[in-house]
């Protein structure tokens, strides 16, 4: 038996030249003590699974899962005019972002290619940004190179980041700190958890309601223990995080997004605010706005794959003559739907929901259908939404 195609979940991304050898994160011993299988990912030893990916996935969808995402980059940007400075690089409306509000945005290169996707929050005196682990050093270099000298960038590399995700996440976290229940989706604030200062946002990357919790590394194990002491909460590995985000239709950098993809190709047009579309003025704007509103020639879509065999990253989209016309960028087995699902880039003419698509993997053809994303309904705690 040997691995034929290993999804890149457990291999480092391509941008890690500047990173150290495989390092240990603050909760390394905590994960091992709880029976996690550790694998190298983004330059760190990371927990890929505890009990098994399907059980962990379904637990998160029905209760609450605790994920360690401390490999991600936490940055603070401050200085006079920092919102306008960020707008030179990001296509989102930073000036209109209220204090304590998060926005999904993109770092773009001059050609409109995506260098990273990120979450940015305006705080009282600065912007707090969470970027991908595999790209964080490149991101920091890019930001330092292009932001004016009077903008200060701090890499919070002594902060751990925990994600508590699932429909019961609020029950578990509010038992420790009742005030978190007042946050809506994409809102954040400073709190204390058992006396530990914590920056908490109501966000995540699983499609569920939940929170991301930034605490000093020295307190991370104590907070993780406190959360896992709640009956709703179990620790969950990165394997289930990947299947959850795939079901939620959320792209993963290094797989569904990279420097060759543009925001319109990646179906991330929502990250371009109306004012920024009209005014431009961000890196890559010529290409990006040129693709608005007609769209890019290749588009990211969701696929429901017939049968039970997963079609994975690296498989191709083929036309009736067998020619490659697109590519699968994420694919796997959906534990919630009990069938294979995938994300792929397909020609614009094939991007409508319901379009039949043929995939080729290891010399075999697979039938699939373009499907709306998310594959599984999201349950974000939105302001004004019906309960």
């Amino acid at each position, binding site marked *: *038996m*040997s*691995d*034929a195609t290993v999804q890149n979940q457990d291999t480092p991304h391509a941008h890690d030249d500047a990173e150290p050898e495989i390092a240990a994160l603050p909760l390394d011993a905590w994960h091992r003590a709880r029976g996690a299988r550790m694998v190298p990912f983004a330059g760190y030893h990371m927990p890929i*699974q505890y009990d098994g*990916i399907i059980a962990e996935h379904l637990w998160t969808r029905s209760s609450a899962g605790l994920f360690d995402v401390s490999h991600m980059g936490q940055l603070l940007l401050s200085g006079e005019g920092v919102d306008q400075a960020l707008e030179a690089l990001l296509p989102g409306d930073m000036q209109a972002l209220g204090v304590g509000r998060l926005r999904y945005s993109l770092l773009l290169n001059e050609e409109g290619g995506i260098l990273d996707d990120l979450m940015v929050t305006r705080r009282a005196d600065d912007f707090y940004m969470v970027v991908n682990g595999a790209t964080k050093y490149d991101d920091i270099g890019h930001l330092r190179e292009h932001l004016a000298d009077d903008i200060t960038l701090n890499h919070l590399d002594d902060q751990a980041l925990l994600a508590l995700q699932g429909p019961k996440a609020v029950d578990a976290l509010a038992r420790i700190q009742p005030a978190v229940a007042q946050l809506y989706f994409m809102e954040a604030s400073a709190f204390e958890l058992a006396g530990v200062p914590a920056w908490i946002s109501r966000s995540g990357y699983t499609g569920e309601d939940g929170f991301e919790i930034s605490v000093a590394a020295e307190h991370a194990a104590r907070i993780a223990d406190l959360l896992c002491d709640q009956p709703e909460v179990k620790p969950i590995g990165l394997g289930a995080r990947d299947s959850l985000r795939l079901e939620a239709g959320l792209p993963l950098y290094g797989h569904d997004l990279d420097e060759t993809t543009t925001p319109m190709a990646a179906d991330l047009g929502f990250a371009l605010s109306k004012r920024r579309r009209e005014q431009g003025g961000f890196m890559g704007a010529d290409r990006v706005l040129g693709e608005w509103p007609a769209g890019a020639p290749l588009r990211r879509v969701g696929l429901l794959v017939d049968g039970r065999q*997963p079609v994975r990253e690296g498989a191709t989209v083929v036309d009736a003559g067998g020619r490659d016309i697109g590519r699968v960028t994420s694919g796997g087995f959906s534990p919630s739907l009990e069938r294979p699902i995938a994300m792929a880039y397909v020609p614009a003419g094939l991007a409508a929901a319901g379009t039949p698509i043929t995939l080729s993997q290891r010399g075999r053809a697979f039938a699939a259908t373009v499907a709306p994303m998310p594959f599984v309904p999201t349950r974000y705690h939105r302001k004004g939404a019906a309960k």
Partner: protein
Amino acid sequence: MTRYFTKDHEWIDVDGDTATVGITDYAQGQLGDVVFVEVPAPGAQVKAGGEAAVVESVKAASDVYSPVSGEVTEGNAALADQPDLVNSAPEGEGWFFKLRLADPAELGGLMDADAYQAFIASL
């Protein structure tokens, strides 16, 4: 009946000139949740060390090699509906295929249970 093992984590139970092939408990533990298995059809010719089946977990696809050469007499049809038998009973109900040995001498290159235990302990 004698059981042999390969370095690729297949097992083979040999009874006269027929044999049953599967993957080991160690292998299923490494794979995690199995969601799909493709087994060879009766009549297929397999070679020692050649690809004979595919097993897919949530995370990855892996080839399963035949420990010996021969003609497949049966694929485990139960795996189509219950691929997780590979996790729950890897060295029993979760077998992959049966075959008729082409060359029993090939068994000499395989490990016995003690040698296999020592091998996985060294990994």
